[in-house]
């Protein structure tokens, strides 16, 4: 059965965000364990730039989505699954905004401003304070692990739709014509 798909813009933004989130998440896990080195400094800067890019992409996706609603879900889908899909997508969007923000606030609290791409200085959101920084780092980490959990459900559900239900839900978001 042929189904309406997401617009090519929505699909491009989705997969670009996927790539950046995986890079940013992986880099975050990797860089924190590194010994103090110039490379570590670079990775931290890149990690922040990736995060801010994800934030901007998410804002762009929400704006695009407001004018281009998501294609309908298959009518045969049980109501609880439709609800679960709504909730998990809302959580994904919220986390894609909250995680970069929490990282930005954390960076401010350590006394290191975020300068996007080394060009655009973002304002410090809080004053430098070591105790605040400790709490914000825990918050940033927790939000990231929450995202990892929701993304796992998101991927599992997509694969189930594709291989078990065979209802074309995944195809709505796959690249290509």
């Amino acid at each position: 059965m042929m189904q309406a798909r997401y617009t090519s813009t929505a699909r491009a933004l989705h997969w670009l965000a996927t790539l950046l989130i995986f890079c940013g998440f992986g880099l975050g896990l990797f860089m924190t364990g590194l010994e103090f080195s110039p490379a570590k400094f670079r990775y931290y800067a890149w990690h922040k730039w990736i995060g801010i890019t994800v934030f901007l992409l998410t804002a762009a996706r929400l704006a695009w989505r407001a004018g281009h609603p998501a294609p309908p879900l298959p009518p045969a889908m049980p109501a609880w699954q439709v609800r679960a899909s709504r909730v998990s997508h809302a959580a994904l969007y919220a986390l894609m905004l909250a995680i970069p923000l929490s990282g930005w606030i954390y960076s401010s609290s350590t006394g290191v401003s975020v300068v996007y791409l080394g060009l655009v200085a973002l304002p410090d959101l809080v004053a430098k304070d070591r105790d605040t920084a400790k709490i914000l780092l825990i918050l940033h980490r927790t939000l990231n692990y929450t995202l990892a959990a929701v993304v796992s459900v998101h991927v599992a559900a997509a694969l189930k739709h594709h291989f078990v239900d065979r209802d074309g839900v995944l195809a709505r978001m796959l690249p290509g014509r």
Partner: protein
Amino acid sequence: MRLFGPFIPSLAMMLLASSSAGAQGVLIDKSEIRFLSRQMGVNVEGRFRKWKANVDFRPKDLAKSKAELEIDLGSIDLASEESETEIRRPRWFDTAKYPVATFQSTGMKDLGGERYEIAGTLTMKGTARDEIIPIEIKKDAAGNSVATGQFTIKRLEFKIGDGQWADPSVVADEVVVRVRMVLPRAG
């Protein structure tokens, strides 16, 4: 004793001040030594928590004036404990071998309009270099003299951040040092 307690510090200050024609000593709690270093394009501020100063500033007799600073390099306040530990290591300050940085003035110049230039020798990690610190003096509400000034040093000239850290695209060579010294009111 209780009655006179609060007066003793101000009395001592008056005695101290009257013994010279200018401000002497530094109100450490009101003063600060900060610095800005550029890391990956980001200006990161830090400061020193512990330092000592011996300042005898006589605007009308600059030849007799002097400024001496001794900075406890291990007392540095940076973004994280991790970076504070790192900067004490041999490739940076090497605080085990060189615990302090010193500044010793060699001459002062009146530029007019409460602006002065203090020339002196900055010694850090076994390297001594002549530096010139331009300062400006203003009075605060309490009548103290507040001297503020900033100057730029090149960390690599002092071999601070050696080896892999020498790359100035990660940590810039230039470090801006900002000094604020509050000198008690004179008489």
